[in-house]
């Protein structure tokens, strides 16, 4: 059976995360682990060796009581667009393992092609890329609970958030079978978005005016992490608190930097 293929407008999938709503519960991290077969060890106390595609950072305004304030900042892969798709990690990968899709705006990672040079990790200022220092070992019986849609990664390769790309593929397949040219907003949502009890995370096509993210990213309180570097990330944050917004980038003294915490 052959169907006509509709060439829809290129998408730019992205997120808007409302930091005033985030409670730091970590449900997004847990959902991400379960959805993407993320390996873990018995001892995860050394966080620099943990794999957390979605990681929640704790920020503080570093002021004393009663002015003290904190903020939780969920950090997935930013799926940077850089300048015309030259995101920091894509251009450096020597084996074309990682790629920027102009169709979806998603930065992919081919695990079976990665040979573990870790140059992409050095290039990513968000520390969104993780190396498999060990072979994944699942507790007995848990291997039966792994998602069949996401390949399990082996020792010695780099992995990262894919914006649950398998869900996009599944939604595309369904639309194709049903003869629809495109997928609807609710048909493709990431696991972290759906798991967030506070509805702090909104996901969709940043180019599509019908998607919620299109309007949310235009909020005057919206900002992106490290915009000054030119990474052109596709994850937006919103906060009504000025110190939180200023924590999203580096500022010189005369540029009035916000008060930030260096520990988390």
């Amino acid at each position: 059976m052959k169907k006509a293929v509709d060439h829809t407008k290129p998408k730019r999938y992205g997120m808007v995360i409302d930091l005033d709503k985030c409670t730091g519960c970590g449900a997004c991290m847990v959902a991400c682990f379960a959805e993407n077969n993320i390996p873990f060890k018995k001892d995860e106390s050394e966080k620099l060796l943990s794999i957390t595609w979605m990681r929640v950072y704790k920020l503080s305004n570093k002021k004393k009581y009663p002015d003290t304030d904190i903020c939780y900042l969920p950090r997935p892969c930013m799926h940077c667009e850089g300048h015309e798709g030259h995101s920091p990690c894509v251009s450096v990968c020597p084996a074309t393992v990682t790629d920027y899709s102009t169709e979806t705006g998603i930065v992919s990672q081919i695990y079976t092609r990665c040979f573990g040079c870790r140059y992409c990790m050095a290039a990513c200022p968000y520390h969104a890329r993780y190396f498999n220092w060990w072979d994944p070992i699942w507790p007995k019986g848990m291997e039966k609970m792994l998602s069949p849609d996401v390949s399990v990664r082996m020792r010695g390769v780099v992995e990262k958030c894919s914006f649950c790309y398998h869900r996009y593929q599944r939604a595309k397949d369904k639309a194709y079978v049903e003869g629809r040219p495109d997928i609807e907003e609710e048909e493709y949502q990431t696991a972290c978005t759906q798991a967030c009890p506070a509805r702090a995370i909104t996901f969709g096509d940043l180019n599509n005016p019908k998607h919620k993210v299109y309007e949310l990213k235009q909020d005057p309180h919206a900002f992106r992490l490290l915009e000054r570097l030119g990474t052109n990330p596709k994850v937006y944050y919103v906060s009504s608190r000025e110190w939180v917004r200023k924590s999203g980038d580096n500022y010189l003294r005369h540029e009035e930097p916000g008060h930030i915490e260096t520990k988390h």
Partner: protein
Amino acid sequence: MDSALIPKGVKRCSLGKFTLVIAVAGAVLLWGVYAMLLCWIKGLNQTNMNNYYGFALWIWADLAVIALGGGAFFTGFLKYIVGKDELKHIINYAVLIGFICYSSALLILAIDIGQPLRGWFIFWHANIHSMLTEVAFCLTCYFGVLTIEYVPLVLENRQLNKVPFFHNLAHNMHGIMAVFAATGAFLSFFHQGSLGGVAGVLFGRPFGYREGVFAWPWTFFLFTWSAAAYGPSFTLMCTKILEKASGKQLVKDNVVDLLAKISGWMILTYIIAKIADTIYWALVTAPSKGHTLMDFYSNNPVYGIWILVLEIVIGGIIPAIILVTPRTRRNGYLRMAAIILGVIGVCANRWVMVLQVMAVPVMPFDFWAMYYPSWQEVATTILPVAYGIILIALSYRYLPIFPQEPELNPVD
């Protein structure tokens, strides 16, 4: 017992003494091989690298040995292309050191990657935009050139040279060595440069990032220049070490003086360019990303402004002044001090461009990441040193590495 293999007209230590040296270096080598096998069999969890330190001691060692091995390409360039004929008395040793450095670099890279069996993917799935791809191609090709340059030396062994085919092959290879020297210089320009570009293109890492020309950041040119500058100094340092170990003068003073002078002028011009680059980076590049210079040198237990002083003043300006001034250059102690300071300076530069790039926090709420290597990393980094000592010992004993040795040390 092995006298038939030793070149004519020179004297070597007893076989027993030689075997002892090889045994000691061999023990260190085996320790390194054991650590290397652990890394290959058990994986990179044997290291103290982590998700903040994707690049660490090995990549520094890689960059450092390649910079120090730069003496091979630059001395070859000076002898065969520029026509500095006096350097023919040290070129063999420069090639040997280059061969050791580059083979070590390739071995370190093979240990450093998470999936060593997929190492060939860098050639098969090559991304032409990546500096590392350029490094891999040029490094491998240049190692091939160095092998071609080293083979005729091996064939000049007394016994091998008796075989007419080997004799003629060595003779003919020497005849066309200028072609390989030119090829080596061309390849070295690119891989030394692309190693500099590895950190220079990281626009997400303001400490390493530099502007530049077309696809090449300034670090591309600075790395090539510094390898050409400090590489000959390292060749001279190794020569002095071997002279001390053998108790003999192996190269005439005029040759040492010439190479030291060239190295000095190269260091001087390099360090001027490096200072200009640092000033522009500190006043323009870093502030445009929201950083001051001192952001990179404060609030951490290790990286103070001292490292910039070590790299530029102690390892750059001081050796440059000593080596370009005839009076100080001709003083053996001062010359040696300058050479050692220069080697430390270029190693510090490579350390900064690898380790400090990883350490500096970029997100304002992030922290300085500190790292110390595991014993497996240290052992595998020392492995090339032991391998180098063994190869130098074997080559010195059985091959005519230093053409002036018989004249300087006549055998009764």
